[in-house]
């Protein structure tokens, strides 16, 4: 548990989520070259390209997941804030 001050700006999280979605889109759109004919090195180059492409794809997927999680956190925070606000008795003038 965090012992420090808890503060969250849901707008910041939503904005960051949008950025990460854009980044994931850019990565997903990265077009790796087709396996070039480089003689006896063709197989090694093909393997290297496949690994690079796989790492890029998996990172894009991780960033989309992170974006979704950030939005969920922002939404949860808003909902919790609203719940607490509705459960808090309103101050009334001349009240008890």
């Amino acid at each position, binding site marked *: *548990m*965090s012992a*420090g*001050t*808890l*503060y*969250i*700006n849901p707008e*910041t*999280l939503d*904005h*960051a989520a949008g*950025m*990460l979605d*854009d*980044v994931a889109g*850019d*990565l997903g*759109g*990265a*077009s*790796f*070259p*087709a396996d*070039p*004919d*480089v*003689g*006896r*090195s063709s197989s090694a*180059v093909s393997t*290297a*390209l496949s690994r*690079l492409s796989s*790492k*890029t794809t998996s*990172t894009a997927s*991780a*960033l989309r997941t*992170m974006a979704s*999680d*950030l939005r969920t*956190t922002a939404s949860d925070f808003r909902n919790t804030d609203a719940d607490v606000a509705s459960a808090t008795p309103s101050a009334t003038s001349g009240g008890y």
Partner: protein
Amino acid sequence: MPLDARVITEPSAAWNAARTLTSVSTTISDASDDVASARSSIASDCSSEATTQALLKLSGDRDVLDDTSADASTLAKALDDFGYSMYSVKNRLADVLDDAMAAGLVVSGSTIQEPVKDDSDADYATKKATTTRSPRRCP
């Protein structure tokens, strides 16, 4: 025996792949910068267990992107260098064909025909020597 001076691997294939890969490397590097920017905004505006975990995860993602970008750039450089090597080989083989023709050998396409033994040909020995010292083919 005829000699084949054909270039099996064209440099353009390696160069094209290198150019595309360099572009990919830039895309990934830019992505890493954007992830860092998103991470920075969260770090400066939020403090919680959830966001701390998010910051750690984003740091890891950025490291992966940096490594991938560097690896793509390294591979692009290797392909570029390979292309220049093949370009050099191609030029040297072209020189071999020129030398063979200059020596009076019959060249069909990229194949240097072995000279037919002819006692009346005073240049036969030179022609024969030319075919035996020429490389057969590039890798």
